[in-house]
């Protein structure tokens, strides 16, 4: 019993820290609210989708930026997609990075774009690892027989 409480406490602490540090925002809470008995893995599914999508987009972006003749519109489109995805799941920092990226695209600043791509990649990997840790903790709590405390 104590183990479950401890795990739950850890989970809550970790979750709170994610919100405090700006990795996640209210949209993520909305997602969690959509998860119920008829849809028990909704959050994990959406987040996995996000990971796949973002990985693909980042690869595309890396390719596009390496081209000799840069098509900024294409780059912008990809970033727009990434921004949309990240805002849908509440990955606040990724979203912010994307907004900056789009600004550089608008002014067609190549250096800026490259820097931003790096920034976005960093933020993405950060939030990815955070979310994976979060899911692991949730799994631990569930495996121990407890329930996930709702925010």
């Amino acid at each position, binding site marked *: 019993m104590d183990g479950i409480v401890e795990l739950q406490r850890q989970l809550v602490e970790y979750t709170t820290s994610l919100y405090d540090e700006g990795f996640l925002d209210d949209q993520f809470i*909305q997602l969690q609210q959509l998860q*119920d008995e008829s849809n028990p893995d909704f959050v994990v599914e959406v987040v996995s989708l*996000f990971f796949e*999508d973002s990985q693909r987009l980042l690869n595309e972006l890396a390719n596009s930026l390496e081209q000799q003749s840069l098509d900024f519109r294409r780059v912008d*489109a990809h970033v*727009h997609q990434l921004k949309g995805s990240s*805002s849908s799941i509440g990955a606040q920092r990724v979203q912010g990075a994307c907004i900056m990226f789009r600004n550089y695209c608008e002014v067609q600043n190549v250096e800026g774009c490259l820097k931003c791509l790096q920034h976005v990649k960093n933020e993405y990997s950060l939030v990815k690892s955070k979310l994976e840790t979060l899911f692991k903790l949730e799994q631990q709590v569930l495996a121990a027989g407890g329930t996930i405390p709702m925010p």
Partner: protein
Amino acid sequence: MESCNCIEPQWPADELLMKYQYISDFFIALAYFSIPLELIYFVKKSAVFPYRWVLVQFGAFIVLCGATHLINLWTFNMHSRTVAVVMTTAKVLTALVSCVTALMLVHIIPDLLSVKTRELFLKNKAAELDREMGLIRTQEETGRHVRMLTHEIRSTLDRHTILKTTLVELGRTLALEECALWMPTRTGLELQLSYTLRHQNPVGFTVPTQLPVINQVFNTNRAVKISPNSPVARLRPIAAKYMPGEVVAVRVPLLHLSNFQIYDWPELSTKRYALMVLMLPSDSARKWHVHELELVEVVADQVAVALSHAAILEESMRARDLLIEQNVALDLARREAETAVRARNDFLAVMNHEMGTPMHAIIAVSSLLQETELTPEQRLMVETILKSSNLLATLINDVLDLSRLEDGSLQLDIGTFNLHALFKEVLNLIKPIASVKKLLITLSLASDLPEYAVGDEKRLMQTLLNVVGNAVKFSKDGSISLSAFVAKSESLRDPRVPDFFPVPSDNHFYLRVQVKDSGSGINPQDIPKLFTKFAQGQSLATKNSDGSGLGLAICKRFVNLMEGHIWIESEGLGKGSTAIFVVKLGIPERSNELKLSFVPKGPANHGQTNFLGLKVLVMDDNGVSRSVTKGLLVHLGCDVMTVSSGDECLRAITQEHQVVFMDICMPGVDGYEIAVRIHEMFSKRHERPLIVALTGNTDRVTKEHCLRVGMDGVILKPVSVDKMRIVLSELLEHRVLFEA
């Protein structure tokens, strides 16, 4: 003894003398050598002694003297020149040192003397400080006493305890012989002895308040020494033998409440004081010290505060008890009233039923009788019976209605009805009677009067009938005009009814109806009585009147229930009268008819929170936001289909879909165009699904564009569950949504 170089035999008789001199010189030398040793020892021991240098000089002087005497020992006999030289040197040195010492002493002696003076001065200072210490200690003790006294006094909220404790503690602290408290009587003209320390039962002495000694005490907040012979101090019969101790009196202000019997509320302006008298033991030499007087003054103040606290507490306890009593009484009264009301209702219900049944029987049978063959006189009689019994039936119903109205158990039956039709029906009902009396009735409905309204149709008709009926009843000839219009807020306020504040709102309007007749009019004095039940003015009790006097009372109740107001204006007898009432009616939903045609399309869309089975199409090319939006809608119970491109959307959309959510920020897809195409696909408005744009920015340009292409709404992404719920309910209710 002179020393010479010649060899002469010494006098043998002087040998003895010489021996003695020899021995004495020896001892002197010894002493002279030992004294410095002692001095050195002494100096070493006392580090404080300031004149060490002098002692060293003394030491040197003594040592040299000793040396001189020691060397003398060799001069008694033949001695060499060396000895003589040494002797001389020693003597010279000795002379030197002694002279120096002597000079030194001249400087030192004044200092030594002044040391003594300083010592005396310090002793005096020490004595002074001792005295001051004594004073401070006394003060601190007084302070302690005050604190202790205050603590004792303030530790209780019971007045008697406070006063008794004060006297006891003061008596103890100051070792008083007697301590007494004089309280002002209710009138304030006398002081009554209320408490004493030693006397067990004070015999209620009183002294008038206006005595000079008492005034003197009351005029200052200090403790005042008074004569032991003054009336307040004479508490026991004076035996000639003792010398009464000093007496001090101090005033105790009684804040707010004057005396022990608190049943009236004295004015705050008259400050009332009690008098505290303290007597030192007689036959003792004690006098009142300043610190003791201060103590007394402080205590008097504290007592005043403690007393007022106690008084206030008592007062509030009394008030609370009174309130509790009143509450109990009120509760009882309320329960009695409720019982009475219930009893009356039961009675009325029973009576209504009991009276109604025979009534209906009479009416029914009389009507039947009417149908049979009757002679003219019989017919007349039967008609009279019928009329009277109808009236009686109406009366019984009215009484029941009124009683139900009065205790608020009547509720309006709200529903949507045709307002225009209502007026026409009233007109139709009244027309026969009016035409019999040759009265002209006109109806005018304002053009902005809504066709449909929400309210209690039956009772509104009842009110209208009553008012119009009265107009007809009390007019012998002429015309009656019935007009209805929507009241604007300025005209709603009737200066005669200052507490009627109609508040127009978006889904209500105020209906104003005026019935003007040119009949007998009403005396302005009688107007207020019109609406009171069973009251009939003199002028109304003509043979024309066959009303019970209840009708208008009931109308007033109905109108009040409809949050309105009714009144009658008349210029006087014979000048006709105008009855006006204003009631609040609801405006029915605009999309009433549309809603009706909506029903076959989808189930359960009148419940705002139940979107079960609502068919929705979501178009979004971003997989993540697509699944999020889908999850949202599924959570709310919708049946969701998702597409990721414009073509797919156009292919998938059918009449069955009620709402389409489309992301208009999709690159390469013109959401607006899709909207236009959807419009083309479904020509009939009620077949077309509602189109809502999902976008990340809601600036004016985007919104206007959406409006132009015919979208029904715009929502800002990301959408929360609550927002989606509100959006869907707004959409389905009003078929339009543009959020700010």
